[in-house]
C-alpha cells in the first residue's frame, strides 16, 4: 500500500479560484442582472467648499427613463456614513466640503439616461475659499468641518525617555522634511454593489468589499431599519487594497436607498473616472523628522511631527494615523522617542485605508534618515540597520518588549546574501565609470509591521467561522473576512484541511455573507490568515471533539486519549481506526453535531492614549528590501533592475501565494515610488484615468525576487503571522536610497517622477 502523508499547509496548492479567473467565468458585481433592474447615478458637487443656495431637480426628473431622484430629505433613516467618528453625511444637506461630494441620487433605466438627467440638475452655490493642503489646513483659522473646533481630525502622541536631553548631547543629528502624494488603489474592478429586497423584505446587497459588516451597518443606518433586515453578500472582488474597507458602505447605502424607494433592484457601479475622483486613497503626508545618533551609529533619539491629509471627513484617518505613529521609527530599539501625529482636515475627497495604512509615508522618511545617517557616520547602510534593528528583548517605541518571532536581522542577512550586495555594489561602480548617461545604484530599507488591528482596533478584534462536516466526509466553511484576490479562500482551505488531517480537495469555501457568521471586523491589517485561520481551528477542534466523543459513546474507542486525525484517517495510539469518510457517515447516522460556529479573540493588546505606551500589536512581521536601479540622465527616468524583498511573517501557509503577494505589493510600491502622481486643480483630481495616472506595467518593475524567511509564531495558525501589506510599505525609501547611491541626489518627495528628479538635479 502506498504510504500517504496528506499535508496542506506549507504547500503551494493551486488557488481554488485560479481556473475561473483565468477563464474569465468569475462573477463580479457588474455581471449580475435582475429582472426590472435599474441603474444608479450620483449628482456631485463641482466645487470644493461652499453652501448650497438652490437645488432644482425638476427638469432632470422629467427625463424619460428616470424613475426617481433623491436628496438628503428622502433618507428614511440617518443621513450618515458610519465609520469611526460618524461625521460624514451620505448626501450634502447644505455645506459642501469637497469636489465630488454626493448631492442627489438618481435611479434610471440606463446609465446614459442618468448622465442626461445629471446634466439637467441645476445647482446654485455660494463658494468659499477651500483648504487644499496640510499646510493650508494648519494655517486656516476656520474649520473645514463646522462640527469641529479646528482642522485636527485626530492627534496621537508618543513620549518615551528623555528626548530633549539626548538631542543636546547627540554625536549626530539629522533633520529633514518629507512629503508624499496620494496613491490610488487602482483595483482592476471599480466599486460596485447591487441592492434588492429579497424574500421577507430583507434588503440584500451583492457587492465588492472588504467588510460586509460595515456595509450592513451603513445600509441599516440610512434605511432606519434593523441590522437583521439587511443582508450583505460578497461577489468575486477584483482587488481592494484598503480601497474597499469603508467606502463600499457609501456604494451600498446609495444602492439600497434607491432600491427601497423604487422597489426595484438597483445596480450601482462606478466608472474609473468617478472612482478615482470620489473614492478614498492613500493620505498625502508631510513629515518633520529629527534623528539623533551616538558615535557608534546607534539610534538614540527620534523627534517627529507627522501630518496626514485626511480630506473633508475623518473616515478612517484616526486609525490610519495611529498605525503610522506606531511604526514611525522603524524596526529599531530607541529609548528616547517623541512623536506627534496629526490627521488634518482639508476640502478634498476623504483619504482612507490603503495597503500599509499610514506607514509607507513615514517609513519613507525614517529609512531615508537611516541612509543619511549611515553615510555621515561612515557606516554601510546595511551595517547601520543590522546594528540598530530589533533583537529578542528589544523594546519598541511604545515600550513593548519583543519576545518571539523577531525576524528582522534574518531578513537583512538573507536579503543581503540573495542580492549579492557587496559584489553588486562594486559592479554598479564599474558600470557608472563606463557610462556617461546611465547611472546605477543600490538601495536598502527595513521595516516592521504590527499584524492585526492592534489596540486601537477595539471591538473589531475578533473573528468567527462556521465549519460544516457532511456525511461524505467533505467539509465546508465560511468566515467573516473576505476574499478580494489575495488568496484567502485557498489559504483558509489549507488550514481547514490540515486541522482535520484530510485532503485539501475535500474542503470547500463558501461565499462570505453576513448571514453565515457574526461581525468579524474588516478584512484589513493583514489579519485574515491570523484571525479567520484561528477561528477555523477552534471550530475544527470542536468538531473533532464531537466525533471523538461519539466514537467513545459507540465503544469504538475505550478512551478519548491519543486520537489523531491525519492522512484522511482516524488513529488511536497510532493505529488506524477507520477512514475519515467512514467516521463522517457513522457520525451522521448517529446524529452527531456536524456544524460548529466558532469565535476567536486575539491576545490582549494595550495602549495609553496620553503617552502612546503599551503593547500595541500582538506581533510584528519584518521586511528588508534591496534594490538596484538605473537612472537615465538624459530623460531623468529611473528603471528598477532587480528588487529583492526579504520578508519574515511567521511560518508560510502557501509559498506561491506568499510570493504572489510579495511581488504584487512590490509592484504597487514601485508605482508609489516612481510613477503614480495625482494632480489636482482647485481640489478637483485631474489625473482621473490610467492614461494620466500611470501605474507600472510589467516592463517597468524589473526582476522581482521574493525572499522568504520563516520564524514560527506560536499563537498564529500553524505558526503564521500576516503579510499582505508589507511588500508595498518600504519600496519608496529603498528606491530613493538607490537613486542617491547612483547619482548623489537625495529625494525628499514621493513620487520620484522624472520631472521631480530633473528639478532636484538641474541646478547641481
Amino acid at each position, binding site marked *: 500500500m502506498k504510504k500517504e502523508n496528506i499535508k496542506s499547509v506549507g504547500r503551494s496548492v493551486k488557488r481554488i479560484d485560479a481556473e475561473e479567473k483565468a477563464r474569465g467565468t468569475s462573477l463580479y458585481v457588474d455581471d449580475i442582472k435582475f429582472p426590472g433592474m435599474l441603474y444608479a447615478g450620483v449628482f456631485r458637487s463641482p466645487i470644493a467648499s461652499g453652501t448650497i443656495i438652490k437645488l432644482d431637480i425638476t427638469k432632470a426628473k422629467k427625463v424619460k427613463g428616470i424613475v426617481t431622484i433623491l436628496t438628503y430629505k428622502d433618507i428614511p433613516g440617518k443621513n450618515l456614513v458610519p465609520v469611526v467618528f460618524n461625521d460624514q453625511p451620505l448626501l450634502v444637506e447644505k455645506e459642501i466640503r469637497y469636489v465630488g461630494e454626493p448631492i442627489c441620487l438618481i435611479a434610471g433605466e440606463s446609465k446614459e439616461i442618468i448622465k442626461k438627467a445629471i446634466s439637467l440638475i441645476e445647482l446654485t452655490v455660494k463658494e468659499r475659499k477651500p483648504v487644499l493642503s496640510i499646510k493650508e489646513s494648519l494655517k486656516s483659522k476656520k474649520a473645514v468641518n463646522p462640527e469641529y473646533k479646528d482642522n485636527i481630525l485626530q492627534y496621537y502622541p508618543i513620549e518615551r525617555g528623555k528626548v530633549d536631553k539626548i538631542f543636546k548631547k547627540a554625536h549626530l543629528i539629522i533633520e529633514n522634511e518629507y512629503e508624499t502624494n496620494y496613491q490610488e488603489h487602482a483595483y482592476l474592478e471599480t466599486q460596485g454593489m447591487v441592492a434588492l429586497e429579497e424574500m421577507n423584505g430583507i434588503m440584500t446587497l451583492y457587492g465588492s468589499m472588504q467588510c460586509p459588516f460595515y456595509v450592513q451597518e451603513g445600509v441599516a443606518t440610512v434605511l432606519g431599519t434593523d441590522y437583521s433586515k439587511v443582508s450583505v453578500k460578497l461577489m468575486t472582488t477584483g482587488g481592494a487594497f484598503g480601497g474597499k474597507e469603508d467606502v463600499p458602505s457609501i456604494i451600498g447605502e446609495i444602492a439600497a436607498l434607491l432600491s427601497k424607494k423604487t422597489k426595484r433592484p438597483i445596480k450601482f457601479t462606478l466608472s474609473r*473616472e468617478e472612482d478615482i475622483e470620489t473614492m478614498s486613497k492613500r493620505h498625502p503626508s508631510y513629515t518633520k523628522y529629527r534623528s539623533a545618533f551616538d558615535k557608534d551609529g546607534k539610534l538614540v533619539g527620534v523627534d517627529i511631527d507627522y501630518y496626514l491629509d485626511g480630506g473633508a471627513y475623518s473616515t478612517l484617518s484616526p486609525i490610519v494615523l495611529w498605525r503610522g505613529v506606531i511604526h514611525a521609527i522603524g524596526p529599531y530599539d530607541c529609548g528616547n522617542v517623541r512623536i506627534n501625529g496629526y490627521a488634518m482636515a482639508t476640502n478634498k475627497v476623504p483619504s482612507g485605508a490603503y495597503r500599509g495604512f499610514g506607514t509607507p509615508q513615514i517609513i519613507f522618511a525614517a529609512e531615508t534618515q537611516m541612509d543619511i545617517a549611515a553615510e555621515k557616520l561612515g557606516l554601510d547602510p546595511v551595517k547601520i540597520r543590522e546594528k540598530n534593528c530589533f533583537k529578542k528583548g528589544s523594546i519598541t517605541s511604545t515600550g513593548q518588549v519583543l519576545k518571539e518571532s523577531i525576524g528582522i536581522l534574518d531578513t537583512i542577512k538573507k536579503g543581503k546574501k540573495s542580492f549579492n550586495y557587496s559584489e553588486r555594489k562594486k559592479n554598479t561602480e564599474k558600470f557608472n565609470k563606463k557610462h556617461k*548617461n546611465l547611472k546605477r545604484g543600490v538601495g536598502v530599507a527595513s521595516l516592521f509591521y504590527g499584524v492585526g488591528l492592534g489596540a486601537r482596533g477595539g471591538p473589531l478584534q475578533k473573528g468567527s467561522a462556521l465549519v460544516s462536516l457532511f456525511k461524505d466526509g467533505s467539509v465546508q466553511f465560511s468566515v467573516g473576512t473576505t476574499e478580494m484576490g489575495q488568496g484567502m479562500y485557498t489559504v483558509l482551505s489549507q488550514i481547514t484541511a490540515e486541522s482535520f488531517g484530510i485532503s485539501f480537495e475535500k474542503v470547500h469555501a463558501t461565499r462570505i455573507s453576513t448571514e453565515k457568521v457574526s461581525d468579524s471586523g474588516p478584512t484589513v491589517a493583514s489579519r485574515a490568515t491570523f484571525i479567520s485561520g484561528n477561528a477555523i481551528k477552534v471550530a475544527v477542534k470542536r468538531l473533532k471533539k464531537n466525533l471523538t466523543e461519539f466514537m467513545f459513546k459507540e465503544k469504538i474507542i475505550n478512551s478519548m486519549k491519543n486520537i489523531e486525525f491525519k492522512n484522511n484517517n482516524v488513529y488511536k495510539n497510532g493505529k488506524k481506526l477507520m477512514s475519515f469518510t467512514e467516521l463522517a457517515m457513522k457520525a451522521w447516522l448517529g446524529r452527531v453535531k456536524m456544524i460548529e460556529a466558532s469565535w476567536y479573540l486575539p491576545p490582549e493588546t494595550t495602549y495609553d492614549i496620553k503617552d502612546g505606551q503599551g503593547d500595541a500589536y500582538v506581533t510584528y512581521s519584518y521586511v528588508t528590501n534591496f534594490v538596484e536601479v538605473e537612472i537615465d*540622465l*538624459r*530623460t*531623468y*527616468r529611473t*528603471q528598477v533592475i532587480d528588487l529583492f524583498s526579504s520578508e519574515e511573517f511567521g511560518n508560510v501557509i502557501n509559498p506561491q501565494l506568499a510570493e504572489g503577494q510579495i511581488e504584487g505589493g512590490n509592484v504597487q510600491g514601485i508605482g508609489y515610488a516612481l*510613477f503614480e502622481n495625482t*494632480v489636482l486643480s482647485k481640489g478637483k483630481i*485631474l*489625473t482621473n484615468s490610467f*492614461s*494620466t495616472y*500611470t501605474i*507600472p*506595467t510589467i*516592463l*517597468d518593475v524589473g526582476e522581482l525576487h521574493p525572499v522568504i524567511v520563516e520564524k514560527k509564531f506560536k499563537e498564529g495558525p500553524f505558526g503564521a503571522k500576516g503579510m499582505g501589506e508589507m511588500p508595498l510599505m518600504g519600496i519608496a525609501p529603498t528606491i530613493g536610497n538607490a537613486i542617491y547611491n547612483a547619482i548623489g541626489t537625495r529625494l525628499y518627495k514621493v513620487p520620484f*517622477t*522624472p*520631472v521631480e528628479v*530633473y*528639478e532636484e538635479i*538641474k541646478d547641481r
Partner: protein
Amino acid sequence: MNKIFVNVENLADLLSIKGQYGKKGIIISGGTDIVVRMKNNMIDPEVLISIKKLAELKGIVARKTKVIIGAGTSLDEIENSTLIKENYYPLYQAVFNMASPQLRNMGTIGGNIGNASPAGDTIPPLFLMDAEIILYSKKGKRSISVTEFFKGPGKTVMRDDEIIHSIILKNNYLTEKNSGYIKVGQRNALAISIASVAYFKDKKYKRFAFGSVSPIIHLIELKFGLSDEQLLKEIESYITPIDDVRATKEYRKQVIINLVKDIYF
C-alpha cells in the same frame, strides 16, 4: 437624435458618403481614438463612417525607392513589416513602442496622422522620410508633404470632403545604424509621449523631428561641427512645450536638448 453608422466597402462609396456628410461624417477604423473620445463626451458624431472593411486602404507596397502604406493599415502590420524595419527604422521603432498589442491591432497609421496630435508617435518619423500624405475626395486626389499637412493640435489641411488614402515614404535608407525614434513616456509601455525625437545621421548633416514639444512638428536639419551653444540656438525655437498633468514644459525642453546632444555629439 438618430445616429448613423455606415460600413463602406469600396473607395467610391467612401468618397461619396464623405462628400455627402462632410464635417458631420467622422471616419472610424480601429476606433482607438474616436471611441475613447465618444466615451468621454469629447465628441458626439452624428455619422460614423467605418472603413474597417475597406481592403483598398490596407497594406504596405514597395515601389522602387518608395513605399506606400494604406491609411487603413494597422500599426501591428507596420510593426511586423521587414520592409519598414529595414528601410524606415524610426517608423518601426515608433510603432513598436506605441500603446499595447491590443491597441496596435486596432489602431491605424491613417488614424494616428488624421488625429493630428503633437504626441502622435508615427508623425515625427515621417518627417525624416519626406513623406507625402495622399488625400482623396470625389473631386480627385492630391498629395501633401508631411511638412505642410499639420496646422496645429487636431488640425490639418484636409477639407471636409477628403479622406486620407495613403502615405508615401521616401528616403529608404533609414536603418537601425543611422536613425531612430526615442520616445519618453511616463512608463515603458502604454504611455503617451511626453517628448520624443526622431533622428537620422548622415555624413553631411543630421535630421531631427521632435514630438510632443510644439503645436506643429518641424523637420530640423543640422550641419556638422556646431558648438554646444550653436546647437542649442538652432533647436530652441522648435521646442515650445506646454505644462500638463504628465510633465512640465521645462522638463520636456531639457529632455529634448539632452537627447539631441547625445545624438549629435
